[in-house]
């Protein structure tokens, strides 16, 4: 399961011990710069740099990373094909008529815009994956707490996060039991089996909820879900390269703005 894999990779990441704030700054900074950049070069450079950082010093397996990128790649690939025909401007590079009276054309403007969208998707995906593959959810909860998000909301998120894996394991067991007894052999049976699976999961989640209350009562619950041990502090030597990188990326964005001559 992808969420289990993401969390496992994050737990083992070389960057696990770097402050969540530093990683958040890098990921969000890159993401914003990718979005505001008028040129495809900045998101492309950002995406490649963050991917290389994840794979080489971060020791994220190339295969796992590649698997994760497949989803956004397919989605953006299909979107870009549509955009190529939807957008206009500039000279016509290629056109054809699939039906009489309907002409589809690809223009230079559409190619530029589509390339920009493709590069932005790549750059932003890399930025988000950087955060997801180096920062376990539990560290993010600490970050949220530091950011002033209400404790009740974070407590709820922590309990939901804890129970996702339990319910997921139960769903997987029920599904396997159904498959072993040919529960998904025919479309009608598949619908029945799936609805039974959902029903069973609802009942077991209800029971798990009751057990949760019992478990909390057994340990004198008084409205407190403790925080994780203190988060890693922000260290100068990890913050400096992030700031320098973002400054470099930012200056490229500024240089690429139309008023400054723009990118070729």
């Amino acid at each position, binding site marked *: 399961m992808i969420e289990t894999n993401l969390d496992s990779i994050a*737990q083992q990441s070389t960057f696990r011990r770097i402050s969540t704030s530093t990683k958040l700054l890098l990921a969000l900074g890159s993401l914003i710069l990718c979005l505001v950049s008028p040129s495809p070069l900045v998101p492309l450079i950002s995406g490649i740099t963050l991917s290389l950082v994840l794979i080489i010093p971060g020791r994220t397996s190339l295969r796992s990373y590649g698997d994760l990128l497949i989803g956004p790649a397919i989605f953006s690939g299909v979107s870009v094909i549509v955009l190529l025909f939807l957008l206009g401007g500039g000279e016509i590079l290629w056109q054809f008529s699939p039906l009489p009276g309907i002409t589809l054309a690809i223009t230079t403007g559409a190619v530029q815009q589509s390339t920009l969208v493709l590069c932005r998707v790549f750059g932003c995906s890399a930025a988000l994956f950087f955060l997801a593959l180096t920062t376990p959810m539990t560290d993010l909860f600490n970050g949220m707490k530091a950011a002033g998000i209400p404790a009740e909301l974070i407590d709820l998120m922590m309990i939901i*996060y*804890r129970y996702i894996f339990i319910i997921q394991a139960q769903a997987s067991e029920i599904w396997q039991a159904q498959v072993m007894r040919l529960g998904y052999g025919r479309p009608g049976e598949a619908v029945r089996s799936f609805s039974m699976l959902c029903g069973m999961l609802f009942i077991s989640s209800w029971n798990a909820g009751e057990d*949760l209350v019992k*478990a909390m009562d057994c*340990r*004198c619950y008084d*409205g407190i879900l403790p925080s994780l*041990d203190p988060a890693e502090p922000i260290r100068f030597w990890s913050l400096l390269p992030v700031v320098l990188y973002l400054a470099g990326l930012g200056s490229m964005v500024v240089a690429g703005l139309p008023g400054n001559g723009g990118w070729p």
Partner: protein
Amino acid sequence: MAVNIILEARDIRYRYPGNREAIKGISFHVRKGEKIALVGPNGAGKSTLLQMFNGMIHPTEGTMLFDNEPIRYDASSLRKLRRRVGFVLQNPDRQIIAPTVYQDVAFGPANLGYDEQAIREAVEVALRQVGLDGFERRTPHHLSGGEKKRVAIAGVLAMDPDVLVFDEPTSGLDPSGSEDLMELLDELNHDGKTIIISTHDVELAYPWAERAILLMDGQIIREDVPDIAFGNTKVVRMAHLSVPTLLELSAELGKRGFPVPERKPRSVLDMVHIIENHLHGTCNHPSPGTILVGNVDETAGGTLSAWVQARPGVIVGAMGTRAKQCAAQEQITLEFTYGVIDKCILRALRGKDSLILTTGSMAGRVGVRVDAYCRESGNDIRVVTLDPAGMSPGPADCKEGDHGNDESQK
């Protein structure tokens, strides 16, 4: 008023919504520091009864007493009770609430109002007790079944309860995990905790418990020391249980003319003693081996492994979580991790030496157990405490049964 009684049930009854009576008039008591096994088949009422110990269930009739005071069910009294009676559920996934080990173990202390430093200390101590130091930032879904069980226990230990109640403690664990867990329960009991477990595993309950309570259909059908509680075949069958193998074997030997002592065998060692007594009258080896005791708290890192490597004939066992961790750190292969003293006595009877790694508080148990066995059997087994200062990591200077000069006889 009985001062050493910590829990008592006086004719308690419990009826579930729907009118099914799960507990039908039960009376018993638990003394401080006891190891009690509630044994019965599925549906006998064990879990229901256990939940009454910390006030999770309020008996419909009768009275539950804690520390000779009737349990009160207002919020404040229940908090006090639950602080002193820790409950470990059968399924650790249902007990572990928080997304990291640290947060889960800290849950109890935080809700009891400890300050940040005290919470940190309580978590550290509890995790060390269960052998999970360094697991603080791990997430529960990345832990094995045995590790989850230990996290659940640590979560309860962090509140420093006097009584620990375990519902089916070994369910879902492999044999090695079960042995390690039972060893941990022994260790906690040695530290002064009263331990109550529910189980339908008679082989587990028989050698471990000081007292067994057999439950059937919401009633106690027998309550006694394990050899008597499990010794009545009719009662055991009535409870849909089986007679422990050692008891059955002892009964069969008795029927075949072997002199079976009045005290029934509780371990393989006891059984071997019965057979050897019949055959030889005493140890079958001319010179029994020695049991060496190494205190891991007093030994410098690396010394033990060098000592063990220099003496390939000495088999090593470890008692207690700290000792096992120390052995793992020093890459010492452990042959015995449960029932260590008895296994080392058996080895000594074959003329072989063994080393028991343990901590200061548990080291004394070795001598006591070996002395008791020697008095009963007439054998003479030496227990030698290794002198940490004089331990030489040099080449082997002794054969089996010859320990050189680096130990001090106890």
